[in-house]
């Protein structure tokens, strides 16, 4: 599903956030991406959704070479990927429901379909009762779950999550990980960036460990 081949990424500041990273995430596989703060986890995820481009090396996602992808194709690429952002990226000028419905509206789904899918997604993250609220009135953990609902609402083939349990208590964190596991069970590829080592160590998934932008082969 994802393949990094000797990928380096240098920000315009000159800082090299990723150094010769190579790995593969198989279709239907789930893995954790860990490492200290500033190790390059978010940067790696940004490369997958083309928020940034690799300075060197090749990135493949869903058998497409991202180096060759032109900007016209990027929206369609992103629609295949559900992303839970570290900073939520929610819109505070509309309700929780509208936030979660956004990917479906963009995808051109029609009204009834949108309603059904949005409620199903909100139900999964336990926020069905808050659909009409503005996300600004939710707790940080609840906002994070709105972000998760939005990421899964159009049943993407690849799910990326950047610190999805960052603001959640241990019990909720375990629930959310369980949710990702469920998705993985139905064939969705999942990559979760997290430094919640406690939680990760209890789960049976492969771990990719970043250190100063380098991928350690054995984490």
């Amino acid at each position: 599903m994802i393949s990094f081949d000797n990928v380096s990424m240098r920000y315009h500041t000159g800082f090299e956030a990723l150094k010769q990273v190579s790995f593969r995430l198989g279709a239907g596989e789930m893995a954790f991406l860990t490492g200290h703060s500033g190790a390059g986890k978010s940067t790696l995820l940004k490369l997958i959704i083309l928020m940034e481009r690799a300075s060197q090396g090749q990135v493949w996602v869903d058998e497409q070479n991202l180096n060759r992808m032109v900007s016209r194709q990027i929206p369609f690429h992103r629609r295949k990927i559900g992303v839970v952002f570290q900073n939520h990226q929610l819109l505070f000028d509309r309700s929780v429901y509208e936030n979660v419905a956004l990917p479906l509206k963009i995808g051109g789904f029609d009204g009834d379909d949108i309603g059904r899918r949005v409620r199903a997604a909100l139900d999964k993250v336990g926020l069905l009762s808050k659909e009409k609220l503005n996300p600004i009135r939710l707790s940080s953990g609840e906002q994070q779950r709105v972000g998760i609902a939005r990421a899964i609402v159009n049943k993407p083939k690849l799910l990326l999550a950047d610190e999805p349990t960052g603001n959640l208590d241990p019990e909720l964190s375990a629930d959310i990980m369980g949710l990702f596991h469920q998705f993985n069970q139905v064939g969705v590829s999942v990559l979760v960036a997290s430094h919640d080592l406690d939680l990760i160590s209890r789960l049976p998934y492969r771990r990719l460990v970043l250190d100063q932008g380098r991928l350690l082969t054995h984490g």
Partner: protein
Amino acid sequence: MAKQPLRNSGRGSAERHKVAVGDRGRGYLAHHREVLVSSLQRLLAEPLATLMTLMVMAIALTLPSVMLVGLQDAQGLSEQWRGAGEMTLFLDAGLSEAEGQALSAQLVDNSQIASTLYLSKADALAEFKQYSGLGDTLGLLDHNPLPAVILVEPDAGYRQPQQLQQLATLLEAVDGVAEVVLDLAWVDRLRAIIAFARSLAWVLGGLLGLGMLLVVGNTIRLEIENRRDEIVVVKLVGATDAFVRRPFLYTGFWYGLGAGLLAWCLIQLILLYLGTTLSELIGLYPGSFELSGLGIAGALSMLLFAILLGVAGAWLAVVRHLAAIEPR
């Protein structure tokens, strides 16, 4: 995808996605409708700011429109005047009233002349009093300074400028005629002035149209700036450029429509006001004059023009400023 690993190769998957979007035409139309409504709601949520922008645009539309409508009517009037090609023969002071009448009757026999009208000195004075409004002042004069005149209306077949000129020369040579005045020179001058004023109106219209474009463009630019976060988020979850542009283009559409309607109201009011003043002035001259207003075709084309400018202004802003907003 685990089950169908070969389905998604290369550009094939992007194309497949487009087909899927086509299948969801209902959702696509629904989104257009939704954006149409929500962009209007946004404008109405800030009525004062919206009204100010609309007023600026409407004034820019009104000015050249009123000019063009007025000039259109003025031109019609000048054609009427010109078409008449009437001549005034001032008679020798020594000519008696009976001789004048006889000359008038004799002139009608000329095939180039359709009709004549003899006005004695007294008639001329009476008419002058009525039109000039100097009635009382003229009464102070102890004798009538005006000559008798014969008004000559040329035959319909002899109204080309050259023919009229020839006829005038001919009549000038007739005994008893002191002077022939062909009322064409000032009509021609009026026509030239109207033509110039019309080009001026178009130039003005062009400049003000450009101004409108900039007003909409700048308003939309601010709107884009205000909605930067939203643009970033929708791009992150897969919005195409068209999707991101849509609300702003519809906003431009509403600005254009609103400004067009407002301008129409302004124009009607102005014409109503000008109409009464003008008809008093014009009533002093021969021919009929009425401000015709925009008419349905005029109103529609102005509305269409306004909408076009609104959308074009929005498009300019969108093209210039949206590309700069990328999620980072």
